């Protein structure tokens, strides 16, 4: 039995490797992301309202909307949950004990396996696809024109923008290097449907990717990547981002040497769940905004 949305928001952590990692990107997006946790606190912050009965009403309606499967919210959260495979190998309990002290990457080397570039390419692209599909599950396709829809997609802020920044930094720059956008585009172009079908992450979420078979789903992944590659390149260049700049910030809480960026990427992949964490926050925000407007 999956948890109610209010419980998911109540249980969002404030101190773990995911939060530290996201905070390390504050130099990219200064003051753009607040780690909003707690259901009641989230409603009060988003609505700006203070009346207890009104807060209760907004919360009740938001929970009801989430519980109605036909509204697509549960599928969106399932996608955010499923694309993050954190904690499986490293053990979140062991890492939780490290909070407050530097995590020595050396101690985890035997448990880390850097991903081959092909697997990392698929990973990054699947995360983009999850973002687009979850966006549509949560918000529908807003507006009457493509321009409206593109404006809606482009209006990313707060936790959604932070999620995209983390994708660029942790799943692009660090594992694949400064030219990751071009590299992913090229590798994706060479990928065959059968190679895609062998990928474990793809297997988990393939039913939610548009397309009647692996070939069409691969086509959708390619189109999704092409749609945002310009934005990603612009994001990297406008913030003058490099793998070193990102990794330097991470050294405030992870101990590693600069020549082990592939292991750093593997560590982040296995110890953080930034899609899940910010996905819960994004969903809660949209549910609360809708509820406030409907009641």
């Amino acid at each position: 039995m999956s948890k109610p949305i209010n419980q998911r928001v109540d249980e969002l952590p404030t101190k773990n490797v995911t939060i530290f990692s996201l905070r390390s990107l504050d130099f990219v997006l200064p003051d753009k992301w607040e780690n909003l946790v707690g259901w009641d606190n989230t409603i009060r912050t988003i609505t700006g309202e203070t009346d207890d009965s009104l807060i209760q009403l907004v919360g009740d309606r938001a929970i009801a909307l989430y519980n109605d499967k036909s509204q697509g919210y549960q599928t969106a959260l399932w996608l955010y949950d499923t694309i993050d495979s954190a904690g499986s190998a490293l053990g979140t309990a062991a890492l939780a004990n490290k909070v407050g002290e530097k995590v020595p990457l050396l101690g985890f080397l035997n448990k880390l396996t850097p991903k081959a570039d092909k697997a990392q390419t698929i990973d990054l692209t699947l995360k983009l696809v999850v973002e687009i599909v979850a966006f549509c599950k949560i918000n529908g396709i807003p507006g009457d024109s493509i321009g409206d829809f593109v404006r809606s997609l482009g209006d990313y802020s707060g936790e959604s923008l932070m999620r995209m920044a983390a994708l660029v930094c942790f799943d692009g720059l660090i594992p694949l290097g400064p030219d990751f956008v071009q590299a992913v585009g090229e590798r994706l172009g060479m990928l065959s449907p059968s190679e895609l079908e062998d990928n474990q992450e793809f297997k988990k979420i393939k039913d939610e990717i548009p397309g009647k078979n692996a070939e069409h789903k691969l086509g959708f992944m390619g189109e999704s990547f092409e749609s945002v590659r310009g934005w990603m390149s612009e994001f990297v260049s406008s913030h003058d981002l490099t793998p070193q700049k990102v990794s330097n910030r991470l050294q405030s809480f992870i101990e590693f040497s600069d020549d082990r960026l592939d292991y750093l990427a593997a560590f982040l992949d296995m110890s953080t769940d930034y899609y899940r964490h910010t996905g819960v926050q994004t969903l809660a925000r949209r549910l609360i905004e809708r509820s406030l407007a409907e009641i």
Partner: protein
Amino acid sequence: MNFSASFAAPRKLFVAFLLAMMLVVGGCRNPQTPAPPSETSQQVQPAEGGAVASDAVPGSAFNKFFPAGGDGYERVYTQEKTGFAEAKLKRDGQDIAMLAISDTISTPIAAQKFQNSQATIAGYPAVTVGNTQTAILVADRFQVKVISRSPDFTEADREAWIQRFDLSGLAQLK
């Protein structure tokens, strides 16, 4: 920092089309996600049990009644769900208000709050809710709400923007 500047429209059209098909055909099936326990307040539920009434108007039907941007204001649609559409109003890149139309067939309690109201805007019953919201009820069914997102966007601004919706058009919607 905007996706839109770099999105190629034809490509986006393709993606949007596929997504639209997916939403229509795929629905929201998800056998791997069990339903969370139902623990909702009955008072905000439609009679039939789901959160949204089956005969609620599609959100897409509401879009054309929203006020346009311009004069330094940017309108960005943010949500379009069954019985609900919402747009953000921005000025100088900052969010200043939310504009919404909802079908109260899914939320009877939302319509009830207008019953005792003496106030009207553009001839429709009006209420102020909390510190940030002004709403009217059109054709005894459709709630039009403007919500402040900035302290500079006052109650008078909300009333003015409510009147910029195509309210007579909305009143004709069935």
